[in-house]
């Protein structure tokens, strides 16, 4: 094998390795994005539930105050 052929083969190997590594990094990144999306969704779900509970709590407090006011 000539030097040029060996260099071309080496370059091909490096490119293949780089491609594999790039694919791995991309997969990881996509996994991270998916996890981050899942996390954001769950955090927003929690935020909504928290707000709704707080809202319900405020209304119940108001109702209890009204009840005590309406009683003799």
């Amino acid at each position, binding site marked *: 094998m000539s030097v040029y052929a060996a260099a071309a083969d080496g370059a091909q190997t490096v490119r293949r390795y780089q491609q594999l590594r790039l694919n791995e990094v991309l997969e990881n990144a996509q*996994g991270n994005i998916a996890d981050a999306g899942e996390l954001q969704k769950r955090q927003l779900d929690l935020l909504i539930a928290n707000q709704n509970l707080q809202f*319900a709590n405020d209304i119940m407090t108001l*109702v209890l105050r*009204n*009840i005590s006011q*309406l009683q003799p």
Partner: protein
Amino acid sequence: MSDIREQIKKAESERDRLAHMRQDMMRRLVSTSKQAEATLRYAEKELRRVESLPASPATERETLMALLRCEGARNNLMLLEKLKTMEIDQALTPSAFQHFDEILARTQFIAAEFNVVRYEPILRAIDAVLDPQKEEGVSPEKVEEVPLKGGTAPVRPIPPPRKLGATSAFPSPPNKVGSPRALPGTRPGTPPRPGGLGTGPLARNPVSPMQRTRVGTERLSMESQLQGRLEGVLKEAIADAEVVDKLKTLRDRVRDVQASLAPLRGDAPGVVSELLPDATAAIRQLSGKVYMVNRAIAVLGDLGQELAFESPVADESLTRFLQALEEGDSAGNSSDRMERIKGLFRR
């Protein structure tokens, strides 16, 4: 990666905590509903009672109070029913919020009206205490006499005191009011023993002639009661030297409340949001917060779809999401919460 997963686990435990809170809230909702139903039953019973009374200004006020009680109790039940059907895990729609807002405004209106009606007699009572002359229709003769504390014997007219040593032209029958009390061990009409009253307990602790008569005893008893009562009142007055000031402050406060609530009387509930800024501001703030989250969810739906296609986070979606948050912010929402949500998407 592991950091995100840890945060997801934390979010899951937070969700469990919220689930417990939700169960607790549902239990409270059930018990509060029972109380609200009992209040409604009482209000309806009261309304039936006052409606059966003959018409008069006094019963008119009672009827108004009973009507307001019924309306307030029904309103409370409506609010609780609405809470029961609310999906805790889902953002409320703006229309659901509008409905809540309307019921809450109605609640405030009823409470205001109820207070105006209820405060009137309180004000009159305070006025009567502070300034009896100004109280119309209350003359000194009309003021009810307060019964003496501890006095059980009926109060009889007190005749002028007998002069000591005076004798009546007509001998009184024994043991009658005004006659000398028969002493123990003596028969009625028996002349006094020579040498005094003897050696019994009365002789050792002689009582005055006044005390020997029933009227005199009653009078002394009344005087001592009056003195005791006066001392009690004085002690109370000294102990509560600020009572009058407190009453005046209370009266002023009640009048302030009345003045601020007076425009509400007879107005449509819609006006309440303008007239009761404090109460409605709180409601609006709550509405605004969840409305903002509602908007955010809608935009996040698009964002989530793009994430599902494994494409990079679209700048356009993110921009739209942030815009939605900004709009929510300008609608008067909590800026802290905004920043937190924005931070989630800026990571």
